[in-house]
């Protein structure tokens, strides 16, 4: 349990550091921080087995960290360095580790939903026992890929868990302006499998729901759609001034912040005290500091390799 707590801390500090590096002009391009969504990533990944597939999103650093990705190589990828997971070619939105089944983030909203579905199809046909977990946001649930994929998965009873991180906003568009029903999870009914709503800021609740969904998938009973209600503390991406939502709303969600809540659980259970909390925070900070040091010291990709790797 302390491990999960530490991973959430690493995620948080990592994203805060990335935002700072962007505003300082140290790194370029764009980034989509998942600050405030730590309990979903860590809760989901905590129930997976080795080799299970994950597809991530444009907001994917945290998924990767929670799955066990090396923060140094993740940071190096954001820096566009040769030591990054994608050798500097993918950046913030395209990093993966195929050896661990982490099939990567995605620059297209909803783009990875059919891919997770296909990975699950392959796992089922090859009878590998693996399942696929597909992260996406509330916005992606309006894409055709979502509906077509869930239909296929329901039809073919695929071993896949669709994890919708409903953080209330697709960039600036509130879910109420984009989705005419209160629960995205209810969309699963059209495709013949269960949809479950869970408090995405409660790590243990996410775990519990995910455990049941993964058992279903592994038993050949088919997919589950898990809607995790959460909130991103920061803007959609770099430069977002959050003019579409109120500071009061943000303050309200801060009281439900996932790390704070999990810390309270750990303290209540006697697993955490001031001393080891301080120690874990120090560790998390050191991991992020080391990631930045590694990324800064890493070499740029060699421009001579520019045209390498278009084809396998």
């Amino acid at each position: 349990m302390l491990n999960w707590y530490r991973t959430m801390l690493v995620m948080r500090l990592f994203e805060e550091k990335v935002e700072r590096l962007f505003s300082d002009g140290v790194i370029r391009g764009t980034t989509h921080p998942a600050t405030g969504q730590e309990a979903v990533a860590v809760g989901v990944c905590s129930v997976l087995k080795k080799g299970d597939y994950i597809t991530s999103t444009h907001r994917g650093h945290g998924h990767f960290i929670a799955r066990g990705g090396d923060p140094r190589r993740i940071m190096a990828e954001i820096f566009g360095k040769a030591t990054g997971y994608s050798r500097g070619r993918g950046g913030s939105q395209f990093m993966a580790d195929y050896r661990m089944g982490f099939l990567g983030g995605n620059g297209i909203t909803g783009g990875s939903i059919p891919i997770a579905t296909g990975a699950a199809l392959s796992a089922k046909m090859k009878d590998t026992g693996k399942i696929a977990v597909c992260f996406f946001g509330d916005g992606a649930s309006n894409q055709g890929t979502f509906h077509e994929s869930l239909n296929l998965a329901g039809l073919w009873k695929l071993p896949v868990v669709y994890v919708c991180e409903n953080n209330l906003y697709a960039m600036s568009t509130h879910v109420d302006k984009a989705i005419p029903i209160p629960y995205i999870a209810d969309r699963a009914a059209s495709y013949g499998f269960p949809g479950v709503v869970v408090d995405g800021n409660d790590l243990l609740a996410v775990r519990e729901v995910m455990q049941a969904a993964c058992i279903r998938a592994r038993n050949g009973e088919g997919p589950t759609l898990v809607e995790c209600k959460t909130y991103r503390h920061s803007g959609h991406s770099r430069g977002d001034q959050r003019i579409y939502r109120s500071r009061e709303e943000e303050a309200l969600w801060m009281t439900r912040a996932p790390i704070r809540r999990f810390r309270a659980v750990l303290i209540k259970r006697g697993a955490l005290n001031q001393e080891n909390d301080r120690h874990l925070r120090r560790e998390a900070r050191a991991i992020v500091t080391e990631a930045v040091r590694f990324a800064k010291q890493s070499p740029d990709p060699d421009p001579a390799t520019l045209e390498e790797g278009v084809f396998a």
Partner: protein
Amino acid sequence: MRTISYTEALREALQEEMIINPDVFLLGEDIGIYGGAFGVTRGLLDKFGAERVRDTPISEQGFVGASIGAALAGSRPVVEIMFMDFITLAVDQMVNQAAKLHYVLGKQARCPMVLRTVGGGGRCYGPTHSQSLEAWFTHVPGLKVVAPSTPADAKGLLKAAIRDDNPVVFMEHKLLYGCRGEVSEAPDTVIPLGKARIARAGTDITLIAWSWMSAEAGRAAEEDLNTQGISAEVIDLRSLIPLDMDTIIASVKKTHRALIVQESCRTGGFGAEISARISETVYDYLDAPLLRLATPDIPLSASPALERAAIPDRSRIFEAARKLVEE
């Protein structure tokens, strides 16, 4: 050697590869009991079962995307898009996912999938069932684009495409399905992607084409130009990506004239790319301007008269080639 149809050749390729490799499977609309809109997969359901000959709902984006995911996870899907025109519904998955993942993920991802589809007019199917959209895909680095024109090539190239570790857009042609030709019975006749075929050797002009236009160019060369004393060399590209420029260049150096024939509309077609590359590399060898024959920049009509007027054919190839040589 025995003679079989283009359709039978494709089916043999699928069947042989499915037997050799259990990771190969087929999916698409109505490919099971119906056998596909053009009958290519007919009978395969009985041989391999519904798991490996998988009917899909009408969800191109979903099942093309699922093919990509399955390929990334180690399967080798061959997905059928009923008409090439419907590929628009899956373009994001091909362009933003399949094509890019190997490169942008630093060579980790492999996407060994084949997207079989059928282009071309000649059947009066109208504007959304007759297009030749191959040029779009040649413009996206990371995709291979193959367009066979004979039964032997259909079989050998499809087998190569299935064995390739990259996403391949495999373009068939409605008018070719019934064409018959000699095809080796040897089980492992694979034709490598990226090697053009000199369909007919000649000395006066080079005709460059692919798919149905290659067949038409062959007839124009053999039956029309030949009788006029014009010796035309016909290059069937077989695959557009990778493109075999060496064969084109060697031919143009020999004949000093080139006519490029494409079925798709003129602007932004692949003929323009070939033309540019010829002029960039062997301009000095040309004795006449480079010429393209293409469908005009119009949507195709269902009217037989209008469709016939739109698409290049044997007689127009003959006329254009004759002019190039004689003027």
